[in-house]
């Protein structure tokens, strides 16, 4: 019942916050969000799962709970939730990041607070749902429901082009979800199952494969077509070049806390789903047929995204495009299909969530003070706001993959896993190309730092730029502490991740 409690608290909290007066909404939401955060940390310590939740191979799904919900003809849809080593770190990431995002909203959000914080808690409930649901329909409900609060968060509290950005984000990702949904349902109907429970589907898929022919496709060809369609669907969400254009708009226009969540958790939904669906359910034979193209796209995403970031003059846009780049690493790790590759990709999901969250928070604090995000307008901020700038620098280096910070661990695992992959042809070459991203990322971040925070102080404002209040800074230090902790001791979560990743790699899926 732990997961129900988590989601329930967040949902109930959202409702309470919605009707609370604006004045106390921020503090109230913070207090409420501590409950899921504490719960999830408790679950982290009490985690007793093993193996992969989708692969019934003697593993244990932690905090499992399941009830039949709807019968659609012969098919059953159930409330089915549980955690394994892949999802638990992401749940903790979500709850922690939400709490911090709430605190970091206290300064910038000064309008319709109760609605704002209510939506944040609502999004939390759905994100937890996405990472815990083990029934396809249930998962999809949470997956789609995330769109609503994010649409409103961007639309109401966003920047000047918020309406365009919000609707683009909304429609684009929704279309992708529909494609993915259609593809997956097609697959389910071709299988020997009468349930939408993901473990059962996975078992059926790996053991027998599609039994029916659809559109003249059957067996491997059907599985391949579905794999491709689902990949395209998730590619938008991740996003992978060339489906990424909604992201910079959404990131840039979103208010800081929404950007934090968008980059921190929402992007991980895409990669999480890729891992859960494409790379778990399909037999190696199917995946390997797409491995090289996907890896190539991943490498292109890394380099292209980094180049785009290099060309930006808006600090937030820089960070936004760099997410495209970072997500490319995740894809590379997944498609390498080795323990370090897939495990590293999962680690990178968590790590990038923390690091990009930190970056957006830092940019937000600077924006709060300067009311500009243009690199060309800023200079020498280090003088005025040393703590915020210090965190920004730390975050930048974390982003560049500085050792002893989580980003390095993640990237190193991915590189190591993909370089030696036998699964992926041309693995060393593709990996080496993708790795060049670490140079470009250093380029644009250092360039941005040089412009924005160093040099003589030049910004002209009609008010005094003061130091940021403690509640702006504190969340960033919490994140920084976690980033360093994970960088120094990646095994904090890497063990449980690999425990859940191993069964994926072992399933041969011979039909």
């Amino acid at each position, binding site marked *: 019942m732990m997961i129900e409690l988590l989601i329930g608290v967040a949902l109930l909290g959202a409702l309470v916050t919605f009707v609370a007066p604006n004045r106390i909404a921020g503090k109230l939401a913070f207090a409420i969000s501590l409950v899921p955060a504490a719960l999830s940390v408790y679950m982290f310590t009490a985690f007793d799962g093993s193996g992969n939740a989708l692969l019934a191979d003697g593993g244990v799904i932690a905090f499992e709970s399941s009830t039949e919900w709807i019968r659609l003809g012969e098919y059953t849809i159930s409330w089915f939730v549980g955690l394994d080593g892949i999802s638990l770190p992401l749940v903790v990431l979500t709850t922690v990041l939400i709490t911090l995002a709430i605190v970091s909203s206290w300064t910038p959000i000064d309008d319709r607070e109760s609605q704002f914080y209510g939506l944040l808690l609502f999004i939390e409930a759905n994100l937890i749902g996405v990472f815990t649901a083990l029934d396809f329909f249930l998962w999809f409900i949470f997956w789609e429901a995330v769109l609503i609060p994010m649409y409103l968060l961007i639309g109401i509290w966003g920047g000047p082009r918020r309406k365009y950005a919000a609707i683009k984000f909304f429609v684009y990702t929704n279309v992708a979800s529909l494609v993915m949904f259609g593809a997956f349902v097609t697959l389910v109907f071709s299988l020997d199952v009468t349930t939408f429970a993901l473990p059962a589907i996975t078992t059926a898929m790996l053991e027998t494969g599609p039994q029916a022919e659809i559109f003249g496709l059957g067996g491997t060809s059907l599985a391949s077509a579905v794999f491709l369609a689902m990949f395209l669907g998730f590619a938008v969400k991740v996003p992978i070049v060339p489906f990424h*254009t909604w992201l910079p708009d959404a990131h840039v226009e979103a208010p800081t806390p929404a950007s934090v969540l968008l980059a921190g958790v929402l992007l991980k939904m895409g990669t999480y789903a890729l891992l859960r669906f494409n790379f778990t359910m399909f037999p190696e034979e199917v995946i390997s047929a797409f491995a090289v193209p996907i890896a190539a796209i991943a490498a292109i995403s890394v380099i292209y995204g980094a180049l785009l970031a290099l060309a930006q003059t808006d600090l937030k846009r820089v960070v936004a495009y760099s997410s495209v780049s970072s997500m490319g690493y995740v894809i590379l790790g997944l498609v390498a299909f080795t323990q370090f590759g897939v495990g590293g990709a999962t680690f990178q999901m968590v790590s990038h969530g923390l690091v990009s969250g930190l970056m957006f928070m830092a940019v937000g604090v600077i924006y709060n003070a300067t009311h500009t995000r243009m690199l060309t307008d800023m200079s020498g901020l280090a003088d005025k706001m040393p703590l915020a700038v210090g965190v920004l620098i730390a975050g930048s280096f974390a982003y560049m993959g500085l050792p002893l910070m989580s980003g390095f661990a993640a990237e190193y695992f991915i590189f190591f896993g993909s370089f030696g992959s036998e699964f992926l042809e041309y693995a060393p070459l593709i990996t080496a190309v993708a790795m060049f991203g670490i140079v470009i990322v250093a380029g644009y971040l250092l360039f941005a730092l040089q412009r924005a925070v160093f040099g003589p102080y030049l910004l002209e404002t009609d008010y005094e730029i003061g130091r940021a209040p403690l509640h702006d800074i504190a969340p960033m230090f919490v994140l920084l502490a976690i980033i360093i902790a994970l960088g120094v001791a990646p095994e904090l979560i890497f063990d449980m991740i690999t425990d859940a990743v191993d069964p994926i790699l072992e399933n041969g899926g011979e039909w």
Partner: protein
Amino acid sequence: MEGIFTYAPAIALLPLAAFVVALCFGNAMPKKGAIAGIFATAGSLGLSLLMLAAVASGEVHHETYYQWAAGETAGHSAAQGIEFTFGILIDPLSALMLVIVSLIALLVHVFSLGYMNAEGETGLPRYYAELGLFTFSMLAFVYADNLLMAFMFFELVGLCSYLLIGFWFRTESAPSAAKKAFLVTRFGDYFFLVGVVAIGATFGTLAFAGDNSFVAQAEAALDGGETLFGFDARTWITITGLLVLGGVIGKSAQFPLQTWLPDAMEGPTTVSALIHAATMVAAGVYLVARMFGYYALSPTALGIIAFVGGFTALFAASMAVVKDDIKQVLAYSTISQYGYMMLGLGVGGYVAGVFHLMNHAFFKALLFLGAGAVIILMHHEQNMWKMGGLKEKAPVTYYTFLAGALALAGIIPFSGFWSKDEVLYDALILGLENQLYLAAYAMGLIAVFFTGFYTFRMVVLTFHGEPRSEAAEDPHDIGWSVKAPLIVLGLLSLTAGIANLAPVGKLLDMDIMFLEMWLDGHYGGLEELTYGAYSDTLAHETGAIAGSEQTTLLVGAALSLGLALSGAGLAWTLYSGSDPAQHTQRLGSVRELLRSNYYQDEFQVWLAEGLTLPVARTADRFDQSVIDGVVDGVSSVSLFGSGWIKRIQTGIVTNYAALIVGGFVGLLVVLGVYGGWFV
């Protein structure tokens, strides 16, 4: 003595503690955190000396302390699993380097009291914190027992240099230089990281030492004639070795990635001393020495190292000749000197390379701190043409600086002579057998002349003649904290050569080549990490002039000493006197070329701003117009379609009736045709 190794981690952790203390409480502390740093580095030095003693007593420390991550290797590796760990390896090489690093760090800390505190700088807690972190990173790098740990601290060293070079962030130039330093070295580190990943993926281990080291695995692969990643083993070892070398070239400022180093002078001079002598730049060469066993397996890689080193030595020395800024001259000399080390290592002169690394650490630290003292004296003026005549006004500075200069120029009996000579000797004997290496030797040899020239040009312009500015006439005072480190280092520059008087030893047939014996494990060490083991692996054929080792030795020494002296002499004749002329006009077009550093900066700036940035902007435009255009286009087309479709609804009911009827007739026709109703 064995118990002492229990404290090994403290060597690095003490400065880390200093970092935390200075960062958090620096403002509240006397001297703004300097005290913490001094105590920490002094502690490190003490422990390092104990380690040295322990190693000298025949003990070696190799222990894994912490498992960072572990997992399965995939595919190509023979090993099933791989563990990424943090461990400490204290053998003769690392023990020696620990002492050097902690000593220099301590002296720099002390010097900073005079250079930074006394000058009323702001942000000192930040400064000392960063120094502490810098020392921590370098010490941890030095005794890292595996390649990944080395890489991690190698990167942290880069971070600290970035922070320290950019210490005066309110200027335009310092942040820019810091950025350049980090970026250029990062470019090198990219190759390094690929190399680390490749070696790990190939051999399933990254350990430097032990039966299971990657070197041992590589040897086994060679012996077994295995195919690695589609290449035969030696080619693959060469490739991976060269990849790692990328990081070395970046950090040790070798051609073509040396451009960041002169710019790095934007940092405080103390930082320059630390970077040039013992930390950042030394890290690269140290890494080659650390994994020399691996390079020994690949003659090609070693050859490339030698040539890069030889060329860099000459190349950088030629640029130092025309510089006016005292720190610039020193910067180019650093590049050049590290070129010698690379040359030495490249020709198999493991001892020579390490020897020069050690000596250079002392005399370069000395020169930089001396330059720092000069800068204090000169009220922060760095142009040598504004100086002059400081000899009488600051004798301590002068004589210590002179000691460093003599060592740098390679004048007997100062330390630099011994090590440089040994490097050149190793190159020569190899070159005699293998003509190709002769070219590398020649470059190194010619550089000696330039070295002598620019060194003495610097000394003469700075200290001799008449004061050429008000500042030079009325120098600022300097305190004990400045003088003490200078004296210590001056003595070391003079005497450090004793460690390995190879020519003397060989000529007199005496066992006074302590360093060689030290590195060869005579006093203690790991067998596979000894000079002897490396030489066995290398099995270089060497030659000798007239078939005699002694003759070769003497000819080589005479050549290099002669060139150094003639360079120094030329500088003396050109620049001594009360009002020296620039003389650079005589160089004609070459002068501009040299002053502009062969336009390498321009080239790299072009690479960044003329090539990468336009490509990025083009990509951005492409992204905005084409990719995003398609997305927006789909929506525009849909909405346009919407506007068109809704026009069907004309508002006139008769039209609706017609459309309904038309619709039914259409359906009727279609269904009728398909259903065969009209037949």
